[in-house]
């Protein structure tokens, strides 16, 4: 295929991403799993890139976790989301940026539903007006937070202090990208690269100096799927999915995993510990696990943020091997400063050492 033809085809896999004035909404679960990531996103956009980002204190859950867990009806979810849009409208913003992949999927699903069934949108507007007295405008631009970082990946690279390169060998770090299922598998046209060639994380990795690893189970779900972990006895299926991915990626010797979903880093990180406890297996090199990062954490690292300000101490699989490979300066004794005033390492939290 000629280059012009490739470009033409690839252009169909692109999406429009706003470049300023973002209405940012946080994820329910990321704030517990990896709280430093969302703070890092805001810091990068506001302080490093100088963008206008607004957070509304009255924002609530989008109810996606209940919707996909089969306990919240679609009509309720749509009304809750309509209220979030009303908050954005009242604040004077038009570009909606959710931190959560499931929220992004739900917003996309709802906007698509309203597009095809205007009478449903009318009913939801009526529901919202009766329940809260609010009115709303649908977002002019809906982009996931990883889309926004993807859009500014070159600007971040230009200001980067570090690159995803092994300082000892000079070789690019071998990075596995893992895209949340609700990003583009439901509505391929709403994700960069669609469902077949999602490029949102791969683009960041390449721009920041790393090498993307293509492995057989690259598009496999991490196993997070709400029904799979909400009931404790079912979690064996969730681990099995992650294990399938680890065994598939292991021969390619990845240095790190980068994700853009709230659940994926949580489970790819924690399940490594669980698999190690149950079966005694480790999938990284030198008997270690494979460190798992969010895209904000990786962006923060290349920009030279302190790893502990990014919340890397919240990871169960230690991140230090990657920090050492890149040559990032950090203070090991400060790792648990959030947990202990005297900076001592809490013994009951020590895992994978």
């Amino acid at each position: 295929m000629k280059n012009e033809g490739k470009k033409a085809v690839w252009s169909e896999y692109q999406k429009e991403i706003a470049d300023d004035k973002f209405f940012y909404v946080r994820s329910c679960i990321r704030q517990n799993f990896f709280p430093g990531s969302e703070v890092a996103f805001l810091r990068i956009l506001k302080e490093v890139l100088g963008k206008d980002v607004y957070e509304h204190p009255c924002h609530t859950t989008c109810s996606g976790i209940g919707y996909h867990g089969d306990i919240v009806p679609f009509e309720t979810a749509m009304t809750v989301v309509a209220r979030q849009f009303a908050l954005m409208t009242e604040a004077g913003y038009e570009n909606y940026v959710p931190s959560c992949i499931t929220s992004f999927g739900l917003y996309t699903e709802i906007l698509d539903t309203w597009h095809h069934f205007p009478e449903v949108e009318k009913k939801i507007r009526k529901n919202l007006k009766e329940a809260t007295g609010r009115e709303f405008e649908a977002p002019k631009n809906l982009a996931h937070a990883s889309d926004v970082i993807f859009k500014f990946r070159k600007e971040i690279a230009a200001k980067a202090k570090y690159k995803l390169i092994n300082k000892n060998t000079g070789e690019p770090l071998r990075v596995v990208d893992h895209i949340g299922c609700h990003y583009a598998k439901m509505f391929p046209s709403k994700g960069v690269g669609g469902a077949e060639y999602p490029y949102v994380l791969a683009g960041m990795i390449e721009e920041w100096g790393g090498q993307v690893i293509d492995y057989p189970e690259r598009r496999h779900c991490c196993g997070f799927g709400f029904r799979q972990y909400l009931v404790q006895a079912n979690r064996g299926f969730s681990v099995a999915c992650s294990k399938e991915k680890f065994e598939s990626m292991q021969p390619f010797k990845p240095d790190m995993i980068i994700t853009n979903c709230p659940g994926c880093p949580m489970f790819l990180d924690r399940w490594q510990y669980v698999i190690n406890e149950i079966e005694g297996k480790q999938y990284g090199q030198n008997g270690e696990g494979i460190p798992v990062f969010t895209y904000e954490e990786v962006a923060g690292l290349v920009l030279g943020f302190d790893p502990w300000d990014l919340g890397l101490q919240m990871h169960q699989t230690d991140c230090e091997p990657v920090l050492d490979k890149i040559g990032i300066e950090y203070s090991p004794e400060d790792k648990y400063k959030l947990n202990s005033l005297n900076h001592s390492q809490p013994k009951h939290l020590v895992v994978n050492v």
Partner: protein
Amino acid sequence: MDKFGFTISKGRQINYDQNDRRIYNYIIENEPSFRNCIACGGCSGSCSAGNFTRFSLRELNILINRGENDLPRTNLKKCMLCGKCTLICPRGVNTRNVVFLAKQAFKRFDSYAF
């Protein structure tokens, strides 16, 4: 289980790269009619052993074809070689010979079989 309240489920993917299809290949080499099976289940419906046990020739056929030999390895022992399945098969598969050859194949390729 005690520590986490769950264990790691076994993967359900059919992995043709890792599965052992020597049993299947041995059977079709010696009884080519095995290829004609359409998995209608007539053999299982008429099976004397299947009436009282978990034995199903149709299931065994599918699993052996995939190279998933764990269940066939133990279940084959339940067949009494009565031959009713051979009489009823609409595709003319010599099913009794299939069971016989499968037992031979397990004996040949798998030292733990019988």
